């Protein structure tokens, strides 16, 4: 046995947890079956426990516990027969099956006490299972019209609540304490801050067991807890807003005080004059006024106290809440070692089957990850490790020839970097042969020869993640990579993660997976397009840029900018998501560079709305998967915000055509100097509005306040490219101005646009007569309209 005793024990430990899950599910299923459930449910349960028996068998085989493997196998046989109605599940058969589950427990006990031989009962139970199977199957006559219910595959989804997380009681205790503190805070809102300082924590520390006691809690319960917590967070935000209202109320009484103090002298005079009560009404009024004064003072005192206490309580609440949030997030976290332990065995087996020698080392496997991420990252890691052993490492002879150690090395390392978890699989094999990769890509028609030549090494190594590349056997023989890597990439990207590869030919190859710390909460930017806001996690954001439209060029009808010396494709978020188009007549654009697995995209957005940490949820069962959307989140205000999926957006960008190109549909000729527009209007509002719109679209603007001034400006060169003029203006109106321009040889070629508040046909005709080129009515005056008109003329 090549495996050390220590590894074996760890494997058994993992297997023990896993098998108990299967055994429990099978036993629960059997109990329900015994109650003769309706046919549909029966089929579903049979499906479920059949799968569990199968998994039990598989798990047992992988750790080499043949006794349990055989039991799992026999159970699977019986259940398969039952599924196909080839066998009657009688009471006797149930007994045997239950006893076989007990036998699994016995085998586990035996393993713990170090016995390698399985207990006698196992053999007995196996033979009983066999004979019961035979006996029962003889009883069943194959009935042609048996009530077999055909169940569609939709009905056979695995039970969703089945997965659980094992929590340590320590964590639960901490959580419990915090909940108690919250309760305490609720019960005693009047408690003053000084008292709080002196009082010791009200909850005595619960005795914490030195052993790692655990409770199994279903993940769905934790999700519920997380959901409730996010509601609590929005309640906290509302409570903070109320504090502001109390402050406003207090300011209000201060104002009242000020007015009162102005009035005080008059009041005191009245009090003195009416000491002897000559006039009853006046005396009453004075008394009321005195009463008012006293009440106002009290109100002020109360409000002051209230706002002080409220501020304290809110602060306390928010501190506890953020701690609580951290704790709840932590509950879903499990160390990476939960999945890496069986890897050792797997690497060994693959190496043996290939006659290779491998030293496999793992570091940082105590790094904690969200359970859901752990589950989904297992397969990609298995894939990468297998690839490393089978295709990355050279044979022993080859290594000797290369002056390398006989044993190949494979390193699996993990650690936290900022908001991400980074897992690296590295081997010291022959690395990626980029030339071979290029050649195969050309052979398979993925690339043209010209493309392959101009392709950088960084781009070439990403080819191995392309679908279609994976099936190529050639690449295995030549460079040793490329089996199912597109699948690996997809799985990683589904987790909002990314994968990168580094390699030096003949030396090493390393694959780096970057994954979010947790799927439950995410830190990122709120962005807005049109009227809809979206959330983009920082894990997907490389940089934020302001891009001038003049920097945009097109390559093969795709818009690009040059960023840090490299072309970066651009795409409008609203085009990718098929939202209504927004105004594109600005000069500067906000661009978020997003990335997924070394592919980059400049995402053009309308506005950044700030930074947030949010609890991300799925869109629910009905919206199983929507392209471009990773999930949704609820803001403090209760507003639901969609979370963007970077890898999807990058994929979409390669397929979706921009609806308006910067250049084609844009309003400027990029090659030229900015166009010069003279705006003539006597209304400062209209002038300013027009100036802003035009400058926003990249025009250079000069202002004149009437026709006379416009002519003065036109006397001096340089001439504008276009004139926009109001009609009714003092001194010289728009018609007069146009007439002058058309009459002047030097000016007559300049296009003139008349803008008026009236849609009067006679004005329009008059405008045409004097030689205006266009006529815009202010009532349908909007950016697009104005800019389009201008674009047609200059």
């Amino acid at each position, binding site marked *: 046995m090549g495996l050390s005793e220590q590894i074996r024990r760890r494997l058994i430990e993992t297997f023990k947890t896993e098998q108990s899950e299967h055994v429990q599910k099978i036993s629960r299923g059997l109990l329900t079956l015994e109650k003769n459930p309706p046919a549909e449910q029966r089929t579903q349960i049979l499906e479920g426990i059949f799968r569990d028996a199968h998994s039990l068998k598989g798990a047992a085989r992988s750790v080499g516990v043949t006794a349990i493997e055989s039991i799992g196998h026999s159970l699977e046989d019986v259940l398969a027969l039952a599924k196909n109605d080839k066998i009657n599940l009688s009471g006797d058969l149930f007994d045997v099956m239950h006893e076989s589950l007990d036998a699994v427990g016995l085998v586990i006990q035996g393993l713990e006490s170090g016995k390698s031989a399985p207990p006698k009962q196992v053999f007995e139970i196996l033979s009983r299972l066999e004979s019961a199977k035979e006996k029962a199957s003889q009883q069943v006559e194959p009935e042609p019209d048996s009530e077999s219910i055909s169940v569609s595959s939709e009905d056979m989804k695995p039970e969703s609540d089945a997965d659980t997380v094992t929590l340590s009681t320590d964590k639960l205790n901490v959580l419990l304490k915090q909940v108690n503190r919250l309760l305490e805070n609720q019960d005693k809102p009047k408690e003053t801050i000084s008292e709080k300082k002196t009082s010791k924590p009200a909850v005595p520390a619960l005795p914490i067991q030195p052993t790692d006691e655990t409770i199994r809690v279903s993940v769905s319960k934790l999700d519920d807890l997380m959901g409730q917590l*996010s509601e609590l967070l929005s309640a906290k935000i509302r409570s903070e807003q109320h504090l502001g209202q109390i402050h406003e109320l207090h300011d209000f009484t201060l104002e009242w005080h000020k007015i009162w103090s102005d009035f005080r002298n008059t009041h005191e005079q009245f009090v003195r004059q009416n000491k002897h009560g000559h006039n009853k009404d006046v005396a009453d009024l004075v008394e009321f006024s005195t009463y008012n004064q006293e009440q106002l003072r009290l109100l002020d005192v109360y409000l002051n106290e209230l706002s002080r206490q409220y501020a304290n309580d809110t602060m306390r609440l928010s501190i506890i809440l953020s701690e609580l949030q951290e704790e709840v997030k932590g509950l879903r976290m499990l160390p990476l070692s939960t999945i890496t332990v069986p890897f050792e065995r797997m690497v060994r087996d693959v190496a043996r089957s290939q006659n290779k020698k491998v030293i496999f080392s793992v570091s940082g496997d105590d790094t904690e990850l969200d359970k859901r991420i752990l589950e989904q990252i297992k397969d990609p890691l298995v894939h990468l490790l297998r690839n490393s052993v089978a295709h990355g490492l050279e044979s022993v002879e080859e290594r000797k020839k290369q002056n390398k150690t006989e044993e190949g090395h494979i390193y699996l390392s993990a650690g936290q970097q900022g908001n991400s978890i980074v897992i690296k699989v590295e081997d010291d094999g022959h690395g990626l042969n980029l030339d071979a990769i290029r050649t195969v890509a050309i052979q398979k028609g993925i690339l043209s020869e010209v493309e392959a030549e101009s392709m950088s090494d960084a781009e070439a190594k990403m080819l191995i993640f392309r679908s279609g590349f994976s099936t190529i056997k050639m690449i295995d023989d030549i460079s040793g990579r490329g089996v199912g890597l597109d699948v690996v990439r997809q799985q990683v990207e589904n987790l909002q993660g990314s994968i990168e590869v580094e390699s030096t030919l003949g030396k090493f190859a390393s694959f780096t997976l970057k994954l979010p710390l947790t799927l439950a909460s995410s830190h990122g930017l709120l962005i807005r397009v049109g009227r809809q806001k979206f959330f983009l996690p920082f894990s997907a954001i490389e940089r934020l840029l302001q891009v001038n439209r003049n920097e945009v060029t097109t390559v093969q009808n795709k818009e690009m900018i040059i960023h840090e010396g490299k072309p970066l494709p651009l795409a409008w978020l609203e085009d990718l998501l098929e939202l209504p188009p927004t105004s594109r007549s600005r000069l500067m654009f906000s661009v978020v560079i997003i990335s997924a697995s070394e592919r980059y995209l400049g995402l053009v957005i309308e506005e950044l709305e700030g930074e947030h940490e949010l609890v991300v949820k799925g869109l629910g069962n*009905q*919206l199983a998967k929507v392209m471009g959307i990773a999930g949704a989140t609820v803001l403090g205000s209760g507003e639901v915000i969609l979370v963007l999926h970077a890898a999807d957006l990058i994929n979409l960008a390669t397929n979706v055509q921009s609806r308006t190109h910067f250049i084609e549909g844009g309003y400027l000729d990029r090659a030229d100097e900015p166009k010069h527009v003279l705006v003539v209007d006597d209304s400062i509002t209209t002038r300013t509005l027009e100036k802003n719109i035009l400058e926003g679209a990249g025009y250079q603007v000069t202002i004149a306040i009437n026709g006379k001034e416009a002519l003065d400006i036109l006397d001096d060169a340089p001439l504008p490219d276009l004139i926009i003029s109001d009609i009714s203006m003092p001194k010289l109106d728009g018609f007069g101005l146009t007439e002058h321009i058309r009459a002047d040889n030097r000016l007559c070629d300049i296009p003139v646009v008349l803008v008026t508040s009236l849609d009067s046909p006679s004005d329009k005709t008059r405008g045409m007569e004097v030689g205006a080129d266009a006529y815009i009515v202010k009532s349908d005056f909007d950016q697009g309209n104005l800019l389009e008109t201008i674009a047609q003329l200059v």
Partner: protein
Amino acid sequence: MESNNNDTDIFNLTFEWEENITPEKLAGIWAKRAEALAQPPPVEATGLTIHLLTFLMGAESYGIDVSFVHEIYPLGQVTLVPRTPNFVVGIFNARGKLISLIDLCSFLGLPNIKQSQENKIVVVGNNHLEVGFLVNEVVDVAKVYRNELASPFAGQATAQSKYTLGIGPEMLIVLDVNLLLQDPNLIVDQSKGNVDGFK
């Protein structure tokens, strides 16, 4: 003609017309017809009852089994979800839980529901799916007998008739919510290979 299913029998009787029909024979037909028509109504208001939540969608009133109704909300903030089929209005926050809002009319191939302040959301669900239906107005909870329901739109296999359990009193269309919720077309899944499924 002793059958209870008088509809078809009367219909069949009309086929006994011949070119040269004698008055006696005609009288016989009339008699048979009268007899068939005189049959007591086949439906007795007994048997299985269904409790229905009734609501308006467009001009029509619909009923669904209350046991599938989870909650009713006024129409509040709904977030549009891009790149989804027409029948998906969006998603909304139901006390911390996100639920899809479905325009059932659109799903059944009828004109879209007009959105207004008065709209309500009826959250329905079975074991594997929970969605909100956008409705114009929630009317009442009513009890109908299962055998009171007339079979709908004979011969028409529209999307709507597929999910209609039957037509109740006052043209109440009783929908089979459970069947509806199991329709795979209700699920939006644009995972690899399905991307163009809805375009």
